[in-house]
């Protein structure tokens, strides 16, 4: 019953989930507020900057939306991205071909996703503890491979993925757009979106329909891992080094973006357009607070407040 809305959505071309209006208002309020505090906020250069900075977050938040729709969570995302980034760094430092490095990054992410998915779906363990465990493991691998140090000297080919441009459009925006289209098609034009919601809402129904809920659940976590690997490539490109702890905590921004974007843990509600707006909201919040001179640590607190607020409003609406 509670899934009706979710099951309908994929059949519409542009499904607009409930919850988008809330986050849209939040964005408008931020735009007005930060512009009032600092005119630079609406400079074209700054807006492009917000987009580029948000691209890495989007790559993590999109698959996180699938995971949360299955009533799961993946808190290992930041640590997996760190391990992928370090793997990329090691391969590049050894002077190997760029594509080999990218394969190493995506491969590392995919393996961790497969591990998460198998433990969660096959052994039916609770997602947040499993991913908490793999978070520790990924963090350990990142530290072990890098010796706890930044990996420098990764060449000039990788940074192009963040600093370059395609037909005048910054490369990270191109990657983000491609990733969004891929995820949108998976969510709304393929069975993945329907099954993700069904795994969260009514796995019995999937079983009766002869669909292997477990296989799809493993697939969703594995796909998420691969996306974290791609995010790690952009992250490494942005810093021109691979650092074992730089991306720790990134999962919190991503989970925050998904929740603020209106995807809920329990009702199969929400979707990717909301997540896109959620990512931009978090991006604007961080950028705006930066411009106003609020330190990064306090930004994290603000995001925490934002998440608790979004959950509160969500709970209040459904009551």
């Amino acid at each position, binding site marked *: 019953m509670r899934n009706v809305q979710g099951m309908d959505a994929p059949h519409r071309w542009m499904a607009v989930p409930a919850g988008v209006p809330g986050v849209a208002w939040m964005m408008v309020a931020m735009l007005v507020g930060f512009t009032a505090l600092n005119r630079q906020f609406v400079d074209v250069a700054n807006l492009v900057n917000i987009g580029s900075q948000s691209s890495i977050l989007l790559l993590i938040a999109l698959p996180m939306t699938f995971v949360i729709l299955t009533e799961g969570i993946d808190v290992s995302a930041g640590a997996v991205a760190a391990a992928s980034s370090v793997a990329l760094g090691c391969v590049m430092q050894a002077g190997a071909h760029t594509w080999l490095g990218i394969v190493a990054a995506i491969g590392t992410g995919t393996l961790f996703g497969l591990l998460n998915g198998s433990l969660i779906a096959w052994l039916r363990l609770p997602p947040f*503890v499993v991913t908490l465990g793999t978070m520790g493991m990924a963090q350990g691998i990142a530290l072990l491979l890098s010796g706890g140090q930044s990996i420098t000297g990764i060449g000039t080919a990788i940074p192009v993925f963040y600093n370059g441009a395609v037909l005048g459009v910054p490369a990270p925006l191109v990657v983000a757009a491609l990733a969004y289209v891929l995820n949108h098609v998976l969510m709304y034009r393929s069975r993945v979106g329907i099954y993700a919601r069904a795994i969260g809402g009514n796995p019995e129904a999937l079983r009766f329909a002869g669909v292997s809920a477990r296989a799809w659940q493993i697939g969703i976590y594995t796909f998420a891992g691969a996306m974290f690997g791609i995010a790690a490539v952009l992250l490494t490109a942005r810093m021109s080094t691979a650092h074992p702890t730089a991306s720790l905590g990134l999962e919190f921004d991503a989970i925050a973006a998904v929740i603020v974007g209106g995807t809920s843990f329990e009702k199969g509600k929400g979707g990717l357009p909301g997540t896109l707006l959620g990512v931009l909201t978090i991006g604007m919040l961080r950028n705006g607070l930066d411009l106003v001179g609020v330190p990064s640590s306090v930004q*994290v607190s603000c995001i925490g407040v934002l998440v608790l607020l979004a959950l509160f409003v969500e709970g209040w609406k459904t009551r």
Partner: protein
Amino acid sequence: MNHSLASFSSLIKPGENVSKLVSRLAAVLIVAIALSFASDAFLTPGNLLNVLRQASLLFLMASGLTLVVLTAGIDLSIGANVALSACLAGTVIKATGSPLAGAAVALASGTLVGLANGGLVAILRMPSFIATYGMMWLINGYTYYFMAGNTIYGFPHGFRQLGSGYLFSIPVPVYLMLVFLALAALFAGRTIYGQQVYAIGSNPVAARFSGVPVKSRLVLVYTLSGLMAGLGSLVFLARLNSAEGDIGEPLTLPAIAAVLIGGTSLFGGIGTPYGTLIGALLLTLVLNGLNLLNIDANWQPFVTGAIIIVAVLVDSLSRRRQEARA
């Protein structure tokens, strides 16, 4: 009401609990014997007392968490709470020179964070992992801001005894551990509150219909978890003799691992504080072993993470076996 609570407590099956504890204690002994063969430094009084001291500190932080997990909840904010409480207490001790004032501040801040968690989970009905996860980042951010990258160090000698001192050649934290083990065991096993906590974890709906005040008991366990984080922060501060914004980061995973290895089920209703002490001992022994065998310290998060997964796996398998039997 009394009748249904009695049937809940029969669910806990004391006999089975004891055999579970004995098998886990055997695991501790096996690891200890293996380590004594692997490293000459292991079976020295200094090292054993050190293990005991570390395990005591871990137990203090994990004991409140045990109660939360018994209600099928989780508290991911423990490490962040310890860092905040330690930094506030350190600042107050430095400013006033009074360890008592510092202790009061740490206990108060720990309790307040716990109370806030309890409110989010029990009254606003947020899933505990996401509410305490949000809380973790919220207070992490505040602690970094408060400390502004500074380190406070050098506390009064008397205060430091709380973490690094000895009494009759046994480390002081061990006595604290014993006191709070007794208190936690009494609370969980011998009071109506404790029985209600088990009841909520076993079957929240049935507990509510039996007249258990679910909301206020949930607020109570999260508050106690916060209070124990505050207490743990004092011992931790006294041991480290310094405080900075990020000292809590490596603490949450081990605390969760200790609770889970100790046989407390993530699905609620099963487990004891004794188990958590054994879990804390086992984890500390393993980490101590890595240290003694000169294995890269970077392995520690990996090993802790893997241990958490194995512990949940064992919990889930034994639960499924029980369900199959029933």
